[in-house]
């Protein structure tokens, strides 16, 4: 019988340290059995359970885009038992991934609309997946203007620095990079909190959907900015986190109201969240 | 013990009216026979639900730790000793609490009553002085309370509260000639293999619900050792070795602090004689340090202090 708890074996292909405090690393995985990659077909917004035998599993958003073939990448923050062990692993080590799990950003609804993406800190991972997917030539024409506001505490804490710089140069995407503060005199981009920069750069909610992904404090201050612009709760999209174990809506631990964050989420619109108990 | 119920209500009302307390912690009558529910009353209009009888075998001091309000609380002998321990361990300040002392005549072991009626369903239990009447659908029987006391109450030598702001009755005579460690001595005499078998059988039913730990006023650690994950000290499955580790280590953490209130045994859903773990440690503290927990505010427990004349026999 098919077993949704059984991970696909993968090998760590590449490890990149993303941030200056070394707490965030991007891991690129390659499937040991090539046919597993097809079975793992995913959509930006989804997550997977990274499974390390002897340690446990962790739910991490998928950072690579389905347009990138041959591998899957995840950016992981060092926080606890499993993530610390993962950070000490080497290229070539074997582990497992289970997925893809959860729902995805509302791509059907986003077609034909202006897409606003607001991200902060290391919540940017599934947003990278979304951006690469959107600007891929096969997909770009489906969307109108794409505007991204992404910030971190300092320049050293930004993820995917090279790609950010690349996107900033492109003219089919309005990229606004910001940091809370910096002493670096050569800092080319914005300085200011994400909600502040969002208020500056986003001028209209017309035919637009906003995806907001970041620490609770960032969401708390960005939400009123978007609402003032005229975004109705149905067009503000959030991605939540929760402690998870099974990831498939069976073990019962990640519920908010009658919704499982692992199965009915992690992507929810603000309109949905307003109906749900405020317990996250 | 029913006589205290009215007095508790009156005292609580008085304390609210005099603004001496913000909260009053007591019991209210349970919805099933032989059970009562701990309750906290903040509204003087609700003091009528306060109740007391011989089925108040939980330990209300469990609800005291780290509270910041002014609290009135009912306390019998063993419970009052737990309050002393809490004060010494800085879990509550003496000024915060108003202790309503109750000289206790012992609590009834509800499981012994069930056995006595051969497990027929009990619908109602009514206390009457030193007897109690048990009614079922098709039977009625009267029992003598003395024969159905909880294990710890039968051998209790501290029935009167040791600390209180007011006491609701005359002190009762303390029992003499009772040996609370009779069963501990029997276990001490067993050879290691028999001891191992005894304890293995004792915890074989444990389902790791942690009711014992959670009902114990001594267990107030923000994160219990069984819940640590970095590193993980104890496994979380029903594996017998992990279960044994939990019970023994918890007992050691209670050494010199346990007042044998019996709450752990009362709450265990599987009917495990929980006190077999802690009583040995209580006996050791008495033998080695002449110590019984919670009797005085002036001395710290033996595992807290070092005295030059502490016994050294274990150093070989």
């Amino acid at each position, binding site marked *: 019988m098919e077993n949704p708890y059984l991970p696909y074996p993968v090998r760590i292909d590449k490890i990149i340290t993303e941030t200056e405090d070394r707490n965030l690393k991007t891991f690129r995985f390659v499937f040991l059995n090539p046919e597993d990659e097809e079975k793992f077909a995913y959509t930006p917004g989804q997550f997977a359970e990274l499974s390390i035998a002897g340690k446990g599993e962790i739910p991490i958003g998928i950072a690579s885009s389905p347009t990138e073939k041959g591998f899957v990448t995840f950016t992981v923050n060092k926080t606890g038992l499993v993530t610390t062990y993962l950070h000490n692993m080497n290229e070539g080590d074997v582990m497992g991934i289970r997925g893809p799990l959860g729902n995805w950003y509302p791509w059907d609804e986003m077609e034909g609309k202006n897409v606003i993406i607001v991200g902060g800190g290391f919540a940017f991972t599934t947003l990278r997946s979304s951006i690469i997917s959107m600007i891929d030539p096969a997909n770009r024409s489906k969307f109108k203007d794409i505007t991204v506001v992404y910030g971190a505490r300092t320049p050293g804490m930004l993820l995917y620095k090279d790609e950010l710089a690349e996107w900033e140069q492109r003219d089919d995407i309005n990229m606004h990079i910001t940091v809370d503060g910096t002493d670096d005199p050569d800092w080319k981009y914005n300085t200011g909190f994400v909600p502040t920069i969002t208020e500056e750069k986003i001028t209209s909610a017309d035919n637009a959907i906003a995806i907001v992904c970041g620490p609770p404090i960032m969401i708390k201050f960005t939400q009123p900015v978007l609402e003032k612009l005229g975004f109705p709760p149905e067009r503000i999209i959030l991605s939540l986190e929760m*402690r998870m174990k099974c990831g498939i809506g069976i073990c019962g*631990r990640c519920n908010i109201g*009658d919704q499982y964050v692992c199965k009915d989420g992690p992507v929810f619109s603000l309109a949905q969240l307003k*109906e*749900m108990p405020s317990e996250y | 013990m029913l006589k205290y119920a009215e007095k508790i209500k009156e005292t609580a009302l008085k304390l609210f009216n005099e603004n001496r307390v913000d909260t009053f912690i007591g019991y209210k009558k349970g919805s099933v026979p032989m059970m009562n529910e701990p309750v906290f009353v903040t509204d003087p209009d609700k003091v009528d639900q306060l109740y007391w009888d011989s089925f108040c075998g939980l330990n209300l001091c469990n609800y005291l730790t780290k509270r910041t309000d002014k609290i009135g609380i009912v306390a019998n002998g063993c419970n009052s000793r737990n309050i002393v321990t809490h004060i010494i361990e800085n879990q509550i300040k003496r000024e915060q609490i108003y202790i309503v002392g109750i000289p206790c005549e012992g609590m009834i072991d509800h499981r012994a009553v069930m056995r006595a009626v051969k497990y027929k369903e009990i619908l109602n239990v009514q206390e009457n002085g030193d007897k109690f009447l048990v009614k079922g659908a098709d039977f009625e029987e009267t029992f003598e309370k003395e024969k159905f006391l909880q294990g710890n109450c039968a051998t209790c030598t501290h029935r009167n509260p040791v600390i209180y702001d007011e006491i609701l009755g005359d002190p009762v005579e303390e029992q003499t000639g009772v040996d609370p460690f009779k069963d501990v001595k029997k276990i001490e005499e067993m050879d290691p293999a028999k001891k191992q078998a005894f304890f293995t059988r004792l915890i074989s039913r444990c*389902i790791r619900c*942690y009711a014992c730990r959670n009902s114990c006023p001594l267990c107030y650690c923000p994160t219990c050792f069984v819940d640590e994950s970095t590193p993980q000290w104890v496994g979380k*499955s029903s594996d017998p070795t992990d279960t044994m580790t939990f019970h023994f280590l918890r007992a050691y953490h209670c050494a010199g602090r346990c007042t044998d209130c019996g709450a752990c045994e009362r709450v265990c859903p599987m009917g495990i004689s929980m006190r077999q773990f802690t009583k040995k440690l209580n006996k050791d503290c008495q033998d080695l340090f002449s110590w019984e927990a919670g009797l005085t505010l002036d001395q710290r427990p033996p595992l807290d202090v070092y005295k030059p004349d502490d016994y050294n026999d274990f150093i070989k």
Partner: protein
Amino acid sequence: MTDKIFSKEEWLGGLEALRKTYGVFVPVKDGDFHTFMPFDKGNIPDFDYQNSRLSPKSVVYPQSERLFEYTLDKADSEADIVKESPKDYSPRAVVGIRPCDVQAFQIVKRNFDNPEYRDPWWVQHFESTTLVGLGCNEPCSTCFCTEVGGGPFNQEGLDVLIFDMGETYLLRGLTDKGEALLGKITGGSPADDQALKNAEDLAASASKKITSSIPTDKLKEKVTNDLFNAPFWEEIAFACLNCGTCTFLCPTCWCFDIQDEVLGKEGDRIRNWDSCMFPLFTLHGSGHNPRDNKFQRVRQRFMHKLKYYVDKYDNGVQCSGCGRCVRYCPVNIDIREVCNLMNNY
């Protein structure tokens, strides 16, 4: 649908015969209470009981179950790859289970066996188990199965139903699985009309004996956030010890934890019953805990059982009225009172 009468001795003989085909589980007296245990030399069945303390959910869903195993020995070519542990799904029969516990399996099945994901272990254990229920002639004062869509002789989910007629048992096969089991027992005689009538009367009078009243009719129409923010939760939760008694004894509670345990170079991935009552249940790696207050956890349990499940599956509450939580809660928090409060809020 076979209806057969057995004398009580014939039935015990029949149980012995069943052991050739099934792993048979029966209620056995264990100290002060009954537990479902395998029927073998050491364990004598005792059907003269109201209900077991631990629900028989552990026959299908054990408290600790090894899911996967792996080796961490790098010399092994399959190191670090988790592999399914071999399982034994040979047929089992749980005999003497009460209809409330059987209805509970149907309630829990919606969680473990749904269109998107099927839990292979729960589903295969359940499908290989035949449920032979014993109707309750004397429901307890704490039972309320009739209030939640069940009943002391409820047939939902049962393969065979036994009516205890005093000197004899009337056995009714309800499903193919049940008929297959009855086919393995020789003896017994077809039930005559009088026996059938007596059985129906028995069932009807048993239902009338249930006195607890917990209305659940208005739960579905309530607004979730109204109930969530109601003022009565702090008061309900005060006494709660946040132990696992209610969740572990409850036949409809299903939450579990997955743990990896390693000894030397070999390891297992096991699942254990977990409880929303425990503070660790929702603790994030970052240290944030959405339910770090006791009353939030108590609220979660009752909201889940009486509201979220109702909304999610539109098939009644997540409770079969067995009454175990009412009788065994160490501080006497009574779900009947809470449900009344919620339904009438």
